C-alpha cells in the first residue's frame, strides 16, 4: 500500500498461503536500512577484521571471477562450493552445474535435516512442504518443538480449525509465542521428545487405541522380522522371488506383504526355512516392545512430564484422531531422527494420513527445476544441456541421508577429505548464526583460497569475505516459485515494487552469479544464452523474463493451461491455483516412495544405512548433561519475531529480546534478577560470554532459552544506532559441534554454566 511517500505491506487474503507477522510488516525498514550493503566490497585487512574498500562492480566481478577460475583450474571445479538458506535455492544448482561443481550445501543440517530424513524413511516424502498437517481442518494438533510460522499461512489456516474447537498441545522446553494463546503447553526436558512420543505409542498400543485396519493395509507393521533385524523374505524360505512376508491369520501361514487376506499385526512365531526354524515377530510387535521401554511412569523420569499427562495426551490424541506436526527447524539435540520417526509413526497409528484434518501429502505443483541431472548430461530449464558432474557432494559422501551438512564442507576445507574445497560462495545466509562449531568455521574461513558473499546485511561472515556483493531484498525483485506452505498445488509470484533506495548500488544475486560465470567461463554462460549483452545490468530483466517464460512454458504444458492466463494471474493476483488438495491419494491409491511402498513403521532405509529400524530415545549426544545447580541446558530457536534479516530492523530492537530466559524458580535460587548480567560458560567448549537475563515463566526450570540469529552480532560493519545487534549471545558459540552420523543433523542446543 502506498500513502504518498509512505509504504506499508498488507497480506493478500485470497493467496493460497496468506500470512503476516512482524517480519514482513517491518520490511520497509529493511529496504531503507542504514546497514544495507551498498557497494561491492573488497577485503583489505585480514580475514575476520572486516576491513574493506568499496570497489566498482566491474573490478569486483573481474577479480572474483579470475580467482574462481584459478581455483577450478588448479583443483578442479568441485573445489568451489556454495552455501545458501532458501534465497536462490532454485537457481543455484544451475549456477553450480555451469561451474562444474555439485557442492551446493544448504542450511538444512541445522534446520530440517532430521525431519526430512524421517519423512523420507517413513513416508518416502521429501522436505517440510511435502507433508503437512491439514491445519484448516484438524481437530487436535501436537506441536513438538515447533513454533508455527505466521507469514507462510499456517497460522491463518489453523485459525479456522481453532474456530471450530481444535485443541493445540505444545511440547517444548520453552513456550513459543503460540503458547500465549489457549493451548496446553507441556514444558518437557530438552532432548527427551522421543521418550515422550514413544510413551504415547506405548499407551496407544497398550489400550488398543490404534487404527488396525490402516496399519494392516497401508503400513509395513505386519511385516515379519527375523532376529537379526532384517525382514523375512521369500528367498529365506527357498521360494522364488524376494517379497517381504507377513503372517496371514486367514490362511494360517505366511504370505507376501500385500497379498494376505488378514495380515496379523501383533504376532510372533517360528517359520521353517531350508536352514532351520527362525523365530520371527511382526514389526508392530517390535514397535510395541520398543515402546514398552517407556511406559508413562518411566517416561516421567526422563521427560519430566507427569505420567498422567502423557497418558491423557495419548488418549486425547488417539480418540480425537489428532495430528502431530512433522517437523521443520529442529536441529537441536542430535537425536531428532528418532523424534520425527516417532511422530510419523504416531500419525500412522491413528490412521490419520492423507485424510481431511490429518497429516497430508501436498498436491505436487509440477514446478520445473532449473536443471535436472541425467546419466550423461544435465538438462536445463533454458533448453541447452550441460555436461554431467564428475564429483559427488562432499557432505553426502559423509552423511548419505542428509539434505545438507555444512559441517562436512568445513571438514573438506580443513582436511582435504574426501577432496579439497577451496572457494566458498555464501548466498543470503548467516553461517556464524546458523551453524554449530564457531571455531571450526573461523579456521575454515581462514584457510579457504576465496570467500565470496552475496547478501543485503553485514552478517558476521561478511568480515571474513574477500569480496562482498550487495543483493536486492525481496521487494526489489520479481520471484516465482511453487507455493510451499499449502496442501494445494499452486504457483506464487511476487512483483518487484521498489528499486533499491538512493545510495544502495545493489544488484540481483542471480546477475552477480551469472556474471561470475560469464567472466570466468564465457563459453559456459553462452550455453544457456547468457551473453556479453547482460554485462550491462540494465539488460538483465530481459534474461529474467526469458527464464520466467521458460517456467511458464513448462507449467502451461504440464497442466495443460493457457500460458497467457497463467502469466496474467501471477502478475495481477500473485498466484495461480493449479489443483485443490484431494484427500485419500497416498498411500491408498498410489504407493509411497519407501522401499515397501507403504508407510514404514519399521524403516528399511534406516536398516540399510546401519541405523536402528525403529525409533528409540537416546540421551542427547549434542551436549553434556547439566548436573550442578548452576548448570543449565541452553535451548535455542526462532519465532515469528526472529529471522536472520528481520533481526537487523529497528522494530526488532524491541520485538526480539536478546536476553537469556531463566525460570523464576532458578532465578530466585541463584539470586539473579530480571535484567541482571551473568556470564555463561559452555560446559563442552569452555567458551564464555556475558548475557542479560530475562526472568520468565516461558521456560522450564533448569533450562535457559535464547533466540537463534538475534544476539551477538559481531561484524565490524554494524554501527550507528544498531549496536543492539551486538548485545546478547549467539547460542552457536556454546554448541559442541555434534553432527549425527548418516543423517547429518547438528545439535544447536548446548549446556552452560551460569556465573554471577
Amino acid at each position: 500500500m502506498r500513502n504518498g511517500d509512505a509504504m506499508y505491506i498488507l497480506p493478500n487474503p485470497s493467496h493460497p498461503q496468506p500470512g503476516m507477522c512482524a517480519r514482513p510488516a517491518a520490511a520497509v525498514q529493511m529496504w531503507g536500512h542504514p546497514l544495507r550493503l551498498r557497494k561491492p566490497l573488497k577485503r583489505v585487512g585480514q580475514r575476520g577484521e572486516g576491513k574493506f574498500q568499496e570497489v566498482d562492480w566491474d573490478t569486483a566481478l573481474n577479480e572474483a571471477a579470475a580467482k574462481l577460475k584459478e581455483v577450478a583450474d588448479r583443483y578442479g571445479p568441485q573445489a568451489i562450493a556454495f552455501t545458501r538458506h532458501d534465497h536462490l535455492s532454485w537457481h543455484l544448482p544451475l549456477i553450480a552445474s555451469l561451474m562444474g561443481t555439485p557442492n551446493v550445501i544448504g542450511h538444512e543440517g541445522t534446520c530440517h535435516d532430521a525431519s526430512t530424513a524421517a519423512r523420507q524413511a517413513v513416508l518416502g516424502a521429501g522436505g517440510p512442504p511435502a507433508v503437512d498437517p491439514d491445519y484448516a481442518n484438524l481437530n487436535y494438533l501436537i506441536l513438538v518443538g515447533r513454533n508455527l510460522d505466521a507469514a507462510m499461512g499456517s497460522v491463518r489456516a489453523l485459525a479456522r480449525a481453532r474456530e471450530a474447537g481444535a485443541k493445540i498441545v505444545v511440547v517444548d522446553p520453552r513456550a513459543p509465542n503460540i503458547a500465549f494463546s489457549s493451548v496446553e503447553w507441556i514444558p518437557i526436558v530438552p532432548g527427551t521428545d522421543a521418550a515422550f512420543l514413544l510413551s504415547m505409542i506405548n499407551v496407544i498400543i497398550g489400550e488398543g487405541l490404534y487404527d488396525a485396519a490402516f496399519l494392516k493395509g497401508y503400513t509395513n507393521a505386519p511385516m515379519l522380522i527375523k532376529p537379526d533385524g532384517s525382514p523375512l523374505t521369500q528367498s529365506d524360505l527357498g521360494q522364488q522371488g524376494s517379497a517381504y512376508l507377513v503372517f496371514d491369520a486367514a490362511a494360517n501361514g505366511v504370505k507376501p506383504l500385500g497379498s494376505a487376506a488378514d495380515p496379523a499385526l501383533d504376532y510372533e512365531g517360528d517359520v521353517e526355512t531350508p536352514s532351520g526354524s527362525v523365530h520371527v515377530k511382526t514389526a508392530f510387535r517390535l514397535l510395541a516392545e520398543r515402546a514398552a521401554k517407556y511406559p508413562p511412569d518411566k517416561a516421567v523420569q526422563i521427560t519430566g512430564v507427569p505420567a498422567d499427562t502423557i497418558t491423557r495426551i495419548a488418549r486425547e490424541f488417539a480418540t480425537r484422531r489428532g495430528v502431530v506436526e512433522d517437523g521443520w527447524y529442529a536441529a537441536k539435540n542430535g537425536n531428532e531422527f528418532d523424534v520425527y520417526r516417532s511422530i510419523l509413526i504416531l500419525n500412522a497409528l491413528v490412521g490419520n494420513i492423507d485424510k481431511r484434518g490429518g497429516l497430508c501429502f501436498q498436491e505436487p505443483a509440477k514446478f520445473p527445476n532449473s536443471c535436472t541431472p541425467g546419466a550423461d548430461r544435465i538438462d536445463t530449464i533454458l533448453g541447452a544441456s550441460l555436461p554431467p558432474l564428475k564429483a559427488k557432494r562432499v557432505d553426502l559422501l559423509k552423511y548419505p541421508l542428509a539434505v545438507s551438512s555444512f559441517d562436512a564442507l568445513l571438514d573438506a576445507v580443513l582436511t582435504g577429505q574426501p577432496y579439497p574445497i577451496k572457494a566458498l560462495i555464501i548466498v543470503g545466509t548467516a553461517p556464524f548464526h546458523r551453524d554449530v562449531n564457531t571455531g571450526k568455521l573461523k579456521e575454515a574461513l581462514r584457510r579457504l583460497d576465496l570467500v565470496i558473499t552475496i547478501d543485503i546485511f553485514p552478517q558476521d561472515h561478511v568480515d571474513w569475505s574477500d569480496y562482498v556483493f550487495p543483493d536486492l531484498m525481496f521487494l526489489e525483485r520479481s520471484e516465482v516459485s511453487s507455493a510451499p506452505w499449502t496442501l494445494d498445488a499452486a504457483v506464487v509470484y511476487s512483483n518487484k515494487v521498489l528499486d533499491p533506495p538512493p545510495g544502495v548500488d545493489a544488484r540481483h544475486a542471480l546477475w552477480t552469479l551469472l556474471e561470475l560465470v560469464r567472466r570466468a567461463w564465457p563459453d559456459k554462460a553462452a550455453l544457456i544464452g547468457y551473453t556479453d549483452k547482460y554485462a550491462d545490468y540494465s539488460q538483465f530483466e530481459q534474461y529474467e523474463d526469458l527464464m520466467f517464460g521458460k517456467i511458464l512454458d513448462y507449467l502451461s504444458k504440464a497442466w495443460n493451461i493457457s500460458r497467457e492466463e497463467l502469466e496474467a494471474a501471477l502478475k495481477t493476483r500473485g498466484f495461480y491455483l493449479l489443483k485443490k488438495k484431494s484427500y485419500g491419494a497416498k498411500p491408498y491409491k498410489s504407493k509411497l516412495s519407501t522401499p515397501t511402498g507403504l508407510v514404514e513403521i519399521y524403516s528399511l532405509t534406516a536398516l540399510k544405512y546401519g541405523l536402528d529400524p525403529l525409533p528409540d530415545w537416546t540421551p542427547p549426544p549434542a551436549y553434556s548433561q547439566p548436573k550442578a545447580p548452576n548448570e543449565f541446558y541452553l535451548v535455542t530457536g526462532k519465532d515469528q519475531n526472529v529471522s536472520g534479516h528481520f533481526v537487523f530492523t529497528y522494530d526488532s530492537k524491541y520485538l526480539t529480546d536478546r536476553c537469556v530466559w531463566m525460570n523464576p524458580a532458578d532465578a530466585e535460587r541463584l539470586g539473579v534478577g530480571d535484567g541482571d548480567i551473568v556470564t555463561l560458560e559452555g560446559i563442552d567448549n569452555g567458551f564464555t560470554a556475558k548475557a542479560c537475563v530475562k526472568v520468565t515463566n516461558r521456560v522450564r526450570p533448569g533450562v535457559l532459552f535464547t533466540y537463534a540469529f538475534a544476539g551477538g552480532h559481531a561484524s565490524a560493519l554494524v554501527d550507528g544506532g544498531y549496536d543492539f545487534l551486538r548485545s546478547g549471545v549467539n547460542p552457536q558459540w556454546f554448541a559442541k559441534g555434534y553432527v549425527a552420523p548418516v543423517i547429518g543433523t547438528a545439535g544447536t542446543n548446548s549446556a552452560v554454566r551460569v556465573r554471577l
Partner: protein
Amino acid sequence: MTRLAFLWDQSRCISCGACIAACNAANYGSSTAPNVSWNWLRTNIRRIELSNGPRPMLYLLQCQHCENPPCVAVCPTGASYRDRDGLVKINYDLCIGCRYCMVACPYDARWFNESMWAPVKCMGEECQARIAKGEQPVCVVVCPAGARDFGDLDDPSSSISRRLAESRYVKLLDNMGTRPKYFVVVGP
C-alpha cells in the same frame, strides 16, 4: 448511533508482532525514531508479558476508545475529543502538547511524538483514513491468527458484535468508570 470498538482475542493471539509492526509502518512511515514514552517502537500497540504467573500471559494494550475517556475530561483545550463514531481522537490544531491526557490515561495508551511535539495514540492518521474508506485498521487486516476485530457495537450484524455475543470477554480497568471499548476475549 455508531460506537466503533476494538476486539482483541487473547485466547487466539500468538504474539507474532504483525499488528505492532504494521501500525508503525502504516501510521508512522516505518519510523526508526524512538518512542521514548514507552521505550518501544513508534506504534500505538504495546506488548505486555506477565512472566511470573502460573502460565505465560500476554496483553496487547492500546487506546480503549473509552465512552467516558479521562483524557478528554482533562484536556485543557478541547483537542482530545470523543467523535460521533465513538472513537477518541485528537484535534492537533488545538493540541498544545501539555501531556495532561497522557498522565490521565489509566491505560498509558498515549505516547509523546517528538517529531510532532504532541501526544499520539490509536488510531493513527492512516488507519483513520482507511476506516473513512470503509476499510479495517491495519492491525486487524494483518493479524494472521484472527485475533483482532473492529467495528460498530450498535450494529448487531457487525463482525465484532457477533463475536462478542458468542465469547467470554473482559474490559480492562472497567472499575475506573472509563467504559472502555477494547474488548479482551478470553475464550469461546
